[in-house]
């Protein structure tokens, strides 16, 4: 902090002018971000908002609209009742995946960063657990679709082992379909979460752990009383980004159920719903749904922003 002040505090007028000139580069370096943001995010956002106020859809081959109908699309969206159902589906599948994900990640990151445990082959394990995150979600879903098919190898193995008497149709049952989606999400993201949490844990000064050890703290106490509280910012970051990611859930259930969200649309997520509207050129409804999603994610981001990111801004002030 003090060092940076030395660099930028002007000592006389001539130098001050020079520093202003230097600081102009701050604006120049911002241009690419701002330009791209305005063109590819802000303009589409305004356009989406605008479209949500118009009746605009395809009725067979005939195009209806665009006619201005105010909040008509929003009212229709709520009245149809599907929205609540798809929101529920999305949240249920997210929670089913997130609970094991965060549990495993906390455990593994605590183990990996524990100086007492000195686990061997750490590099190998980290490489392995991060691997599923690299896998193309749609290919992974396709793989699970073939693996868990009634004629697939999983059913075959379970029958051979005597666990199943006859093939179980995983994708015809609500619980197993949602379970598969949650399992895949957990598998794909726990390695990523572990690495993020580890980065946070490595930031905790080692002498705190050593002091706790000298005082005779148990590993459990160390974890709950030192690691977790100090990990709070990064933990919240992980939680909210995962929730926002969960609301965006699309690829896995889309490919697994071929976009149908079956059985009985119980695995249809919000973004699958949006995708459906977009593909059938149902722009009014797509717009309204997008705006609702924007509001929900906006509120969530605001929470995480108030809890963690705001401190970053304060830290940056000098």
């Amino acid at each position: 902090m003090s060092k940076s002040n030395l660099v930028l505090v002007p000592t006389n007028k001539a130098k001050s002018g020079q520093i202003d000139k230097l600081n102009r580069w701050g604006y120049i370096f911002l241009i690419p971000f701002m330009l791209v943001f305005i063109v590819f995010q802000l303009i589409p956002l305004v356009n989406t908002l605008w479209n949500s106020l118009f009746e605009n859809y395809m009725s067979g081959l005939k195009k209806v609209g665009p006619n201005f109908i105010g909040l008509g699309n929003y009212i229709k969206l709520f009245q149809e009742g599907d929205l609540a159902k798809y929101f529920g589906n999305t949240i249920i599948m997210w929670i089913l995946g997130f609970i094991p994900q965060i549990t495993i990640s906390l455990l593994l990151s605590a183990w990996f960063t524990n100086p007492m445990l000195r686990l061997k082959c750490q590099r190998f394990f980290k490489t392995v657990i991060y691997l599923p995150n690299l896998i193309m979600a749609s290919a992974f879903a396709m793989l699970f679709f073939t693996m868990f098919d009634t004629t697939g190898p999983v059913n075959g193995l379970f029958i051979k082992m005597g666990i199943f008497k006859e093939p179980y149709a995983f994708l015809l049952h609500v619980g197993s379909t949602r379970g598969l989606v949650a399992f895949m999400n957990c598998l794909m993201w726990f390695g990523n979460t572990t690495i993020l949490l580890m980065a946070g844990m490595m930031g905790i000064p080692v002498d705190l752990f050593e002091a706790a050890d000298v005082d005779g703290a148990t590993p459990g106490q160390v974890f709950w009383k030192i690691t977790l509280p100090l990990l709070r910012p990064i933990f919240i970051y992980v939680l909210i980004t995962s929730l926002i990611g969960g609301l965006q859930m699309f690829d896995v259930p889309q490919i697994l159920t071929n976009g149908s969200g079956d059985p009985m649309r119980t695995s249809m997520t919000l973004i699958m719903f949006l995708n459906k509207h977009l593909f059938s050129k149902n722009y009014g409804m797509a717009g309204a749904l997008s705006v609702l999603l924007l509001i929900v994610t906006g509120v969530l981001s605001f929470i995480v922003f108030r809890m963690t990111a705001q401190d970053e801004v304060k830290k940056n002030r000098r």
Partner: protein
Amino acid sequence: MAVNNTMASEKSASNTLRVRRTVAYVVLGIISFFCLIWFYMLFINATRSNAELGQGFTVIPSTHLGENLKNLFHGTIPVGNGMINSLLIASLTALLSTYFSTMTAYSIQVYNYKGKNAIFTFILAIMMIPTQVTALGFINLVRKMNLEDNFIPLIVPSIAAPITFFYLKQYMASNLPLSLIEAARIDGEGELGIFNKIALPLMKPAIAVQAIFTFVSSWNNYFTPSLILHEDKKKTLPILIAQLRSADWLKFDMGQVYAMIAFSIFPVILVYLFLSKYIVGGVTAGGVKE
């Protein structure tokens, strides 16, 4: 007495440590198994013919991998093109996104100007907003710009990547000494030169991590490309996989189906085995230092 007590407690401490270590290894072993088994099964099945696949799973690979791949490439799905398209889009996205995110982070970290904190606050506030919520406006824009079936709308928007920016900004705060920049200024180096020659190399570990993250998310991306790319030759691998899923897949040669999945998964695994040093080492070397 006191000495004896310490010795005894040290012994029991080393015993509990041994138990904890064993538990850790067992759990890690089980988790690793669940991470890898799918890819092992995929590999086995990709080497077997349709007839063999009908007879249930075996542990040892068969001999039909080449045949399956040959059939795949001579089939109706343009996998070769898909691979090239996916690679091109993901690489350029990773490159542009990390370079310009570092630049944005550098602007906020190194300079002092009016509105800086407002802009920083703004970027952090919009950080979490998913691209899907603006997809409708995005399609309309791309259509107006006449960029449908073009890779530009899939690559260029990644220049404004708030999450990448945030990570790099945090890393920069603890790993970029401002005195180095000042020294370079005294040596007469220009600001862009300082950024490219001093800041970028110092940020390498963090950039490598973010480049991998960005590459992966672009490579995985199915939602946006499927809205933009319609021509068969322009499609990326995820769209082709979806196409495979929506086809009446039972009519397919299952050997080919597995070969196609293997083809989209294994090259990434191979590349990852070489790059894993950067992601694992990069995060552990830098990370979020306070």
